């Protein structure tokens, strides 16, 4: 891949703006069977918690038009297992290592960052997940309160020098409020958006399709919501934005960058085509070539509103 795709998200240098989103690439092992992940800007790990989690019971997926609901419930092997068995592997992929940190409480997040900070040589970014809609406590309920966002980000800022990216939930009336709160707390970047809370119903049983009743809606259907939120935040924030939501093509990446994103995360697309990250990266190379763009980051925030 050429240097045309090199981007910076704050202090973090990435080979490309294309990052695989948390929860859609595990720790990279499975997708590395399909392509060389070193073409990517980075890989965001499965959302980790301080203790292993079995995740939610019963059906965890419901297909929708142009997307899907998932309710995995942060199934993960726990941060200690990750450090021991997966971190070195992720590092070996020769791409940005973004560790997704989830939790149920203020203490959980602090405990996670304390455990990860000693491995800062192997980690490029801590992505703080304040937005998972599928667990009963923490995460989304923290992310939807600007006061709590600021409190938690400030606390984490004191615990590590690693770049902190704060992944926010779109399930709020004003996305700029938690985004500004994260910035005030000392965040290095904002990741927008996690999934939209949704429900599907089996009309025969009159029960929700997913056993957790609700799930997180992802896929191309959520893309316009995400782009709107990136654009809104871009106008009020001083820190960079990583855009996420329904990206399937290079043109989608360009749209997010014009809206204000410095980099993007590709999620559900990898569930449809395991090599989606590669296809999008190659598409971006062609886009730069065709449009005589020397560096893709020149697109960031070039939106002109009517």
């Amino acid at each position, binding site marked *: 891949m050429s240097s045309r795709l090199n981007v910076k998200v704050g202090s973090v240098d990435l080979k490309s703006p294309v990052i695989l989103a948390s929860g859609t690439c595990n720790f990279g092992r499975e997708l590395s069977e399909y392509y060389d992940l070193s073409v990517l800007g980075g890989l965001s790990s499965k959302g980790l918690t301080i203790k292993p989690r079995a*995740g939610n019971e019963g059906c965890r997926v419901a297909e929708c038009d142009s997307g899907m609901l998932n309710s995995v419930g942060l199934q993960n092997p726990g941060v200690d297992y990750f450090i021991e068995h997966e971190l070195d592997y992720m590092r070996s992929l020769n791409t940005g290592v973004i560790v997704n940190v989830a939790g149920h409480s203020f203490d959980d997040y602090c405990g996670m960052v304390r455990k990860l900070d000693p491995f800062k040589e192997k980690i490029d970014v801590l992505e703080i997940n304040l937005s998972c809609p599928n667990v009963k406590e923490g995460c989304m309920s923290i992310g939807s309160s600007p006061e709590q966002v600021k409190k938690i980000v400030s606390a984490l800022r004191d615990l590590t020098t690693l770049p902190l990216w704060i992944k926010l939930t779109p399930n709020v009336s004003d996305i700029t409020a938690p985004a500004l709160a994260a910035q005030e707390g000392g965040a290095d970047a904002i990741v927008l958006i996690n999934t939209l809370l949704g429900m599907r119903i089996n009309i025969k049983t009159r029960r929700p399709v997913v056993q957790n009743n609700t799930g997180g809606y992802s896929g191309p259907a959520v893309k316009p919501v995400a782009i709107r939120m990136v654009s809104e935040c871009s106008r009020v924030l001083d820190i960079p934005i990583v855009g996420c939501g329904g990206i399937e093509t290079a043109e989608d990446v360009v749209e997010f960058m014009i809206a204000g994103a410095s980099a993007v995360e590709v999620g559900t697309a990898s569930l449809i085509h395991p090599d989606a990250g590669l296809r999008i990266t190659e598409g971006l190379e062609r886009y730069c070539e065709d449009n005589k763009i020397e560096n893709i980051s020149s697109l960031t925030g070039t939106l002109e509103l009517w």
Partner: protein
Amino acid sequence: MSNKQEYKAEIVSKDYLNEDTLFFELKCPEIADAAIPGQFVNISCSKFLKRPFGIASANKEDGTISIGVKIIGEGTKNLSEIEIGEIVDILGPLGNGFDLDSFDSYILAGGGTGVFPLNFAYDTLSLMGKNVTTVFGFRDRSQVIMEKEGHIITTDAGDYGIKGNVLAGLDSLSISGNPCILVVGPTPMMKGVGEWARSHSLKCFVSTEQHMACGVGICLVCVCKIRSEDPNEEYKHVRCCKDGPVFDYEEVIL
């Protein structure tokens, strides 16, 4: 090591086996070459997600595989409308597949769409010269599919073969040696056959099914439960698509 990819496969034949079940052959030499029985493919069907189908046969010389499709929802309905010559996106072969090496003789027990992967197991075991007995159970004569010479067929209605379910078929066998049981079908059938195997002190493997998204082990939506070695936890969630779909009956919690 990146050596897997998504393929385009042409539909080379399409037949109705009964009113709602079709049999497709698809041209995909890479998958035909690599597939082992018990594995599956994930196929695009004009919906958002692909759909998983157990591989029903693989012909390395022709470069074709076959799948059975029972029309259940919109995705399988869309697939039923695909015509010969059309192209689908396909991932595979996926999953772990059956262990066909460790035993000298096998009993295959199946029903529903489970008869398709077992057909592949039957073909392969026959070619290997192993002793293989097949018992397929159906609702009634009109539902009987994938019957080959020597297969034992049971029907609930009793209008064809042995009256009763697959257990009636298994009870009709005189068991010698220590055959391994492979069962694929609805969960109650797999539980019934698993218990039957246990009562005969025979090894039994089941093939699990769950609503699936990626098929390659990255999204964690298609989990099933296995018994945990850790005394502090009741069970562990594992991925049907990547860790399975085939599990030891003694290990999986159905």
